């Protein structure tokens, strides 16, 4: 079926008609947003800028590292969406999983895979907080500091970790094991104070529990204190819910 997607696709491969295709798709996009009164000059400037970026990208498309390694998974992700760009966040996650953070060349490769310009990838990745643009510790500790957790002691959790690990938020330990961040609400407000370490939640923290978690991570790389499927209060009276 005819679509702007396929026009851009073709133009991208042939290099020459890219300028026209981009400009026209931008035109189409601002119209479809109902932005009839939007600044025309800004619109065409953006089109030209995009072309320059595409041309630049042609010279350094970042190789095929991800594609070679995760070809099938990438195909599967792309198949979920009618428009390629939707796969951007899933592919960035894939790159981050591969390397611990998203490298410059991964961004270029993804841009190429999705027929985007590197700036389009860069503007998206910097908008979201979950992508790391630099190497992180093996365990990325994120403590929630929003009001509900703060009411039950999240500031003490942060101080405790700072003291135990000797790092401030935004830093990593010298051995590369831990990084600390202070973040906003993670949807565990009734079981605060809480933190997330890599993919896992740890809730209802106390000083004692924190020590055990850090020790577990150091020795085994995981901790049985992490949360399972969430339910609070628990149906069978136990612990604090009694």
């Amino acid at each position: 079926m005819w679509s702007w997607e396929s026009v851009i696709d073709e133009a991208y491969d042939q290099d020459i008609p890219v300028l026209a295709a981009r400009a026209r798709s931008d035109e189409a996009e601002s119209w479809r947003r109902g932005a009839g009164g939007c600044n025309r000059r800004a619109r065409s400037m953006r089109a030209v800028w995009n072309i320059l970026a595409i041309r630049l990208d042609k010279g350094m498309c970042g190789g095929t590292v991800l594609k070679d390694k995760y070809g099938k998974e990438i195909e599967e992700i792309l198949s979920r969406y009618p428009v390629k760009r939707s796969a951007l966040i899933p592919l960035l996650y894939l790159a981050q999983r591969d390397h611990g953070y998203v490298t410059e060349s991964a961004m270029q490769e993804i841009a190429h895979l999705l027929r985007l310009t590197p700036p389009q990838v860069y503007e998206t990745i910097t908008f979201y907080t979950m992508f790391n643009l630099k190497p992180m510790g093996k365990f990325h500790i994120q403590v929630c500091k929003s009001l509900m957790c703060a009411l039950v002691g999240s500031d003490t959790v942060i101080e405790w970790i700072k003291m135990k690990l000797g790092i401030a938020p935004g830093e990593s330990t010298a051995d590369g094991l831990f990084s600390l961040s202070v973040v906003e609400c993670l949807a565990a407000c009734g079981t605060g104070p809480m933190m997330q370490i890599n993919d896992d939640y740890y809730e209802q923290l106390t000083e004692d529990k924190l020590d055990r978690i850090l020790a577990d991570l150091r020795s085994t790389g995981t901790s049985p204190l992490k949360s399972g499927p969430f339910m609070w209060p628990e149906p069978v009276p136990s612990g604090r819910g009694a």
Partner: protein
Amino acid sequence: MPKHELILLKNMMQPGYTGSLTDYEKTGGYQALRNTLGKIAPPDVTAMVRKSGLRGRGGAGFPTGVKWGFLPKDYQGPRYLCCNADESEPGTFKDRQLMERDPHQVLEGIVLACYAIGAETAYIYIRGEMVLGSKILEHAIDEARVAGYIGKNILGTGVNADVWVHRGAGAYICGEETALLESLEGKRGLPRVKPPFPATHGLYNKPTVVNNVETLANLPHIINRGPEWFAGIGSPPKSTGTRVFCVSGHVKRPGNYEVPMGMTVRELVYEHAGGMRSDKPMKAFIPGGASAPFLTPAHLDVKLDFEHVAAAGSMLGSGGVTVMEEGTSMVWAALRLMEFFYHESCGKCSPCREGSSWLVQTLRRILAKRGRMEDLETLSDLCKNIAGRTVCAFGDAAVAPIQSTLKHWRQEYVDLINEAEAANLIMPGQVGIGR
């Protein structure tokens, strides 16, 4: 044991219930789907939902059936359903429980909604941090696909509905429906100017419905037991059904409580959540997540439904009820929430982008006892110039904590500025962990 009947949390409260497809089917799961697909015409499903009085549980409380009715009737191309599982509103943690404990209930709701609006593709936009939740959902989708409840030609009726999980990446604003669509399209999550509304120009410019997880989870029950049954629960005619309230803060038993709409805050906090955690009396509460203005104990008998909470000067919002005890500094509490909004402003419009930063700085100064009396004027001026002047409702939400604390606890600001008494106020972070 609660006196009223549970609807959404009923299954998961059974000991040993795992949320697997077998468990869900044993409790009558997917019966609504069997009885609907090919047997009730899609417009009639929409009519049933409209009749039930179901209103959105995501924040705005828009009647769900009415929203579905806005989709163009004669449009030939694809339509989309987006399940809003972004759940980032501070104080809210119900969707997480609904998805992680009973994922099929949500999925059945999604397929029913797809059928009603004629969508063949649904995306569950789940917040990026909920890795466990997205894995559970993906597993449940696989189970349902094998059993023929999701995918092509569902149950041999010729109806198609594919469901995909799409993880966000840490941006509160992507809970706003148009920002969610932008994000799903692989862009920055900047809310769109409305109109046009998603019903006509949504995902990929196609007719789209965005519904919250809890909203969708109600659908199988409405179909199974009839819209009249649902409309009789809660506080009809305007606020029907139950709400899963997320109680947090200084209470004995925080957690998710499903109660009929219209229950008083007093009953929810003192009977369900066990009352205050210590002997200190209640000082303040938020009835509907961080975006809802603070209320005082004078409002304890306000009924928790859309109209009564609004009449009391706040909003039911996402159902996050946060309780604060005597001794909590309200200026500090307002600052904590304001810091959240400052961090999460998407930056598209200047009043919100610049104003939130200005508000945070002013509050910090006051709290550090370096404030001036004029600062109070500045605060209210800024709030007035943000609310109602932004692209999305985030602007109104962001000023709620300040406006409401200035209204109810102005003296605390004055005292801080006067450097009086303030030294006695406890900031919870400084007194150790625990309740």
